[in-house]
């Protein structure tokens, strides 16, 4: 199957790592990213429309 490279606009890249890792060795930050998408419904859209004020958001 032909593939295109995952971008930050899909969840596929972290999922690939999770799928091949034993449960106890899953990285918390990878799991947290899935939680934000699946539970918190975080958008994957990159919002780079304006030069955002330099703070952590």
């Amino acid at each position, binding site marked *: 199957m032909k593939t295109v490279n995952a971008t930050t606009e899909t969840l596929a890249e972290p999922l690939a790592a999770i799928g091949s890792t034993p449960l106890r060795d899953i*990285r918390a*930050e990878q799991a*947290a990213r*899935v939680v934000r998408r699946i539970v918190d419904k975080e*958008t994957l859209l990159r919002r780079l429309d304006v*030069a955002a*004020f330099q703070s952590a*958001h």
Partner: protein
Amino acid sequence: MPVSAGGVPHPLSQFVLKVHGRCDLSCDHCYVYEHADQSWRTKPRAMSRDVLRAAVRRIAEHAVAHALPLVRVIVHGGEPLLLGPQRMDDYLTEIRGPVEAVTRLELTLQTNGVRLRPEMCDVLLRHGVRVGVSLDGDRAANDLHRRFANGSGSFDHVRAALALLRSRPYRELYAGLLCTIDVRNDPERVYEALLAEQPPRIDFLLPHATWDDPPLRPGDDPTPYATWLSTIHRRWLADGRPVRVRLFEGLRSTAEGGPSGSEQLGADTVDVVVIETDGRYEQADSLKTAYDGAPATGLSVLTHPVDDVSRLDAVAVRQTGVRGLSAICRECPVVRQCGGGLYAHRYRSGHGFDNPSVYCADLRALIDRSNEETTMHATTQSEASGAVPTDLVARIASGFGDERTIGWLVEQQRSITRALLYATIDQHGATPAWRTLTDLEADHPDSIRAVLAHPYVRSWAVDQLRPGSGPATLSYLGSLAAAAAVRAGTPVEVDVEIADGVVTLPTVGTLHGPPGVNGPARLTAEQGKLWVAGPEGTITADLAHPAADAAWQPARWVPLDDWGVRLEDGDPARDCHRWTPAGRLDAAAERAWRSALTEAWRWIRAEVPGYAPALRTGLQVVVPLRPDPSGAQRASTARDAFGSLAAALTGPEDLAVLLVHEFQHAKLGALLDLCDLYDARSEATVMVGWRPDPRPVEAALQGVYAHAAVADVWRVRDGNDQSYAKYLRWTTDAIAALRGTDALTPLGAEFVDTMAATVEGWES
């Protein structure tokens, strides 16, 4: 003092409100207190309510005058949490009222985190504020600069705040981490420390410097900041981009000709204005590093509208992109990516800001390296490492999906479930059953894989992780561990929960004890036998002779050609389908379901075989629902239970339609898990034929996708039937309505176009 260009005012949409002018830390790298501009000494400690009201009024007026669809207010300081919870509550109320009356408002707060407590979090949660926290890395890195006045480090305080932000009640507050770089810190250790806090986003900030006061450059490396950031960039790529990093995303976006989304990069329009505690407008805070008074505008919310700020030359020049940069920058081959760097970093006495950045060499090296590294990473990616099938959207949008496409989606769903399971433990703590489960995985990975494929593992985990969904009930882990052990043929002893007499072992079977019994129990499985010791005695089951044991109901497998589905009537987690599930099926009900499913599958194979591969690959479980008293059909797909659908028993012809219809929802839901087909922030709604009320975009997408399939069934079943005409009209009208919104992403537009092409193909 800046002068006014006197021209047409520009819209400004980001407002940094300095609600408090002091800080409880004394960081030696802080631009507010430690750099050239010392105006903080003459400003009020906190913004008064009158100033706040004036500021908010100006913001709202500006939003109306420019018809701004969105205003971002960044609650800032000093340290904004010094306001305290009560005053913060009052201030946020003051901000929201006038602004939300005229436009959409995004509220964020940037803090050092030291004073973040549940009481403050409750206030922020109530007002929908997202919180960014400053953290410079591990203890050594953070406490190099971020210290209290007495010299002690803030690391432990910040980590306590971050633990609070990761907790289930407050997770939605957590916006990200802001890390100021110090090249003396080990970049990999900084990266790992930041990652350990599980932030949604990280932003790296170059330490503020100018040509007059250049940045620290220890050693012989001419571009230490590029070296430092490149080290993290390579690690981030190798790790599969586990977190969003604004600087790196900006580099990638600008490499593709897009915007940077950052003040540090690119030539995007900068539309930020700061409102100080005394009401004076200022330019971006970072200018405080240039010279005393650099950010000042001479204007105030008490006397001037925002438009007057936007007319200032110093603000206007930052609206002109590359044209506003120095001659050296304009001739640079990477100017579109660099954009001259942060405005403040260009300052040199006697030349003002008409210079390249003092970080010019670092930015050039960073851009070249990151472009190269990103390209290398992209070319070496394979499907196994996260590449997406090129035709994924087209195949799903066509209405069908072959085995390989759906199989790929199934694998993504399994990974999602694993991640959520892990996150549940990360959130609530490991239990003995979790340890049993993970120990079993080491020796029997296939058994674990089979059990975790059960659709309701995900829905259970989501319940444990969703804010406000009640106390965690981790006993389900015991059921999963027991099921895996039984599948593996290995003895196990775990804690489980009896719910109305039932203990389920997902994918294996269900133990039915006396109804009405609830509570914790100890399950033992060994040599084909089960013992469940609960509050009212022990129930036993002989798994090897299920027919002789009324208490034990093995999983019911309904073979359908070369595949099959399970009838799920035991797992309490199946109760997530809006309708009440039917209880344990008796022999007659089981026979009726087996017959209906077998016949329905024949109908599907005969009438609409294009939908068969997806069903065969993705559908695992059918949950019988209680029938509607009026006889109306009932069917449902749960977004968090891919691979299952629920239905009340009906005739095979109708059941065939329901299976096709419901599994369309499942396919689209699985796709929506992975990518955005619409802008979730859009408030667009569309009218659809199947509902009298306006529907949000996702609901309309789901509806039209499922109804298109139903139209297809009726088209084949009876091309001139009224049902076909009705579903076709609903479908075509909803496609037109969706195209009429501006809510679809490019991927979403592609999806709708492909769906439309399928439908148009029927008519030709």
